[in-house]
């Protein structure tokens, strides 16, 4: 047992200070997308909805509906359209209602349906 004890003391504390202080490691994690409405045409929105493997993106009229709960942060939408989609950097995503996770992103231009 002394062998474990001494090694533990030498190593020090590795425990995160979260939630009292932010944890720098969070910046290295994949996060759901954030969108640029100015770059989101209806065509692009349809394309992204087809690419998403987890049914997190659907187009409804002049909006792109983004379900952050279904999103796996796989990055396929971002890789397909980097001018319109970037990583949001958000990881504190817990919601008390599923509806809080469904976001409406306005599309560029008028109303195509």
């Amino acid at each position, binding site marked *: 047992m002394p062998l474990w004890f001494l090694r533990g003391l030498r190593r020090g504390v*590795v425990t995160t200070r979260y939630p009292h202080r932010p944890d720098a490691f969070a910046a290295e994690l994949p996060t759901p997308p954030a969108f640029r409405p*100015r770059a989101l045409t209806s065509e692009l929105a349809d394309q992204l909805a087809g690419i998403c493997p987890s049914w997190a993106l659907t187009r409804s009229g002049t909006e792109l509906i983004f379900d952050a709960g279904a999103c796996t942060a796989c990055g396929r939408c971002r890789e397909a359209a980097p001018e319109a989609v970037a990583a949001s950097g958000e990881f504190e995503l817990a919601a008390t209602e*599923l509806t809080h996770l469904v976001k409406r*992103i306005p599309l560029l231009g008028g109303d195509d349906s």
Partner: protein
Amino acid sequence: MTRPGTEETAEALRRSVASQFGRSLHVRTLDTGSCAACEQEIRLLAAPHYDLHRLGFFFTPAPRHADLLMVTGPMIRAFDVAARKTYEAMPGPKLVVATGACALGGVYQPDAFTHGSVGETLPVDVWIPGCPPSPLALLQGLLVAVDRLAEKVRDLAFIQDGDAG
């Protein structure tokens, strides 16, 4: 799954339940068909880097001793009975936290194999996105569930800065 009355009433109920857990909470996990990655992240909550004990959270194998049920997986239909039994074995007040994209309606659509969402079988209080949610995200979710951290995602728009569209 019915929710009592309006969203405000449900929210008040959840907060009153959460406030009773004060500084100590016992967590039971339930796998309804996950790929096993969520379970690995949950196990790491007790590991030195995250140490959920310092926040007053503890894992317990017995549903009878549990205050909070952490559910992973898309609720495979073959699991309904086991899931309900586990939930009903927990004495009230109790909370349910659905964990990971599969449990929140992603990855699997409802079909003959799965419900696609934990909410189809159990009443869920908090939903934690991720594939898998990292232990930091899980900590935030647990703290939101017991009302020690405010929910953040409700006010996020997922629109890039400087782009009001």
